[in-house]
């Protein structure tokens, strides 16, 4: 199990070097994205002015405070609490995020499904698990909200965060077909019969 420090954006080779079970710390830049953001981008044809190529996106909608825009704060927001939402709902957007926008890494909680696993394999990407519900800690890894797009969807805007030592994250799904979630689900399915027998409910 290797530990990787990745300065974003990264190349396909860097994404393919990640293996399920490895740990990762991200540096520099991270984009926040959520249900409504992706529904508007991929179902309703809206485009972002951000270049996501080679970047990581995190499934989130933050708590923010409005502040005056300034030279150092173009977004007009500062972070209150930034955490991570359940990824499964956004399963069908993995491939378009990678194909159309060039995204390499998706960060979330709870894992993604087989179609995402295929997209990571074919296009060169990975899913990184952050600990869901640990948002107070995660907020300390974010140094600024640098910019925001599609802000009519607030809080489900497309956010650009500046980050420092974001992690450690766990590689949950890699570009070689490896998935910690698949292993756990297979084990749970295998144990089901034994568990039900003990309950007298086989």
């Amino acid at each position: 199990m290797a530990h990787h420090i990745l300065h974003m954006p990264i190349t396909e080779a860097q994404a393919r070097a990640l293996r399920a079970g490895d740990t990762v710390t991200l540096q520099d830049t991270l984009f926040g994205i959520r249900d409504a953001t992706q529904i508007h981008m991929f179902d309703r044809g809206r485009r972002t002015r951000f270049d996501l190529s080679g970047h990581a996106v995190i499934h989130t909608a933050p708590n923010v405070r409005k502040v005056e825009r300034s030279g150092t704060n173009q977004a007009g927001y500062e972070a209150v609490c930034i955490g991570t939402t359940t990824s499964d709902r956004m399963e069908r957007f993995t491939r378009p995020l990678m194909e159309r926008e060039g995204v390499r890494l998706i960060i979330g909680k709870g894992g993604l499904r087989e179609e995402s696993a295929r997209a990571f394999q074919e296009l060169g990407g990975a899913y990184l698990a952050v600990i869901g519900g640990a948002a107070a800690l995660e907020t300390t890894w974010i140094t600024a909200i640098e910019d925001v797009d599609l802000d009519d969807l607030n809080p489900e805007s497309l956010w650009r965060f500046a980050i420092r030592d974001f992690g450690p994250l766990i590689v949950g799904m890699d570009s070689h077909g490896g998935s910690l979630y698949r292993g756990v689900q297979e084990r749970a399915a295998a144990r089901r019969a034994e568990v039900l027998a003990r309950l007298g409910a086989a």
Partner: protein
Amino acid sequence: MSVIAPPGRLRITPDAIEEAAKLLYIRALKILPDDIKAGFHRLDASETDGLAKSVLATMIENIAVAERTENLLCQDTGIPIFNVEIGRDVEVDGWALKQAIARGTERATREHPLRSSVVHPITRVNAHSSCGAHVPVIHLDFIEAPRVLRLTMIPKGSGSENGSFLRMLIPADGIAGVKRFVVDAAIQAGGKVCPPTIMGVGVGGTSDLCMHLAKVAATRPLGSVCADPEGAKLERELSEAVNGLGIGPQGLGGDSTAFAVHVEVAATHITMNPVAVNIQCHSARRASATFTPEGVEIGF
């Protein structure tokens, strides 16, 4: 018939309710109840999987960071739920109480500020108030104690709320059908519901009552036990069963899938055998205010 409160009754103003609702929403989001903290340490002590232990350690660290930085435990401000228990000698304007809870919720959202996680279900428009039709969810109950009003706030996270399941089983499915349904719900929910969880199970009643019981069970303090002995037995059996599946914290594998399975029961029809599951995530947040003639006590 007099509508004037006799002396000795506890009178609570809408303003006091509004202030309490605002305070409780913010407090619930920041400080985890002691029973949940103890639950984390219990799981951490018994967990055998290395990765699961590190996941639990991060969750425990997060609880401390939230308190130290006075920040929210989780970014999900949830659907605001308020349970109101009203004693027999309490005088309160019920309609005004409901308005006051909504005002307190909106003020917490705008003044802290908090992310409003509430949208219109069809237009998906967010009013940035954490309020909307029938939200906050308010449950009223009447209790025997004379001069007490207790307001409990639960910000119910969506990741776990999406892990809600109902099936109208039939009598021939028996209790075995109920057990299979709960185990399969835990497998289907996997890591999506932010385990370790409190799995709430409703058994009996009507479809709506059954799901309500599951929510009551999911939001009960850890260590509490179902008042019905058969329900309590089911709690013990299902807790062991769910934790034998190996789903683990965050669905990444391990022994710690659920802090506990809680069961609530209601009588049902001779033709019915309903079962519902509602799940509370590891950020099992709640806060309460207890009004008595001596004042207001803030707790969990």
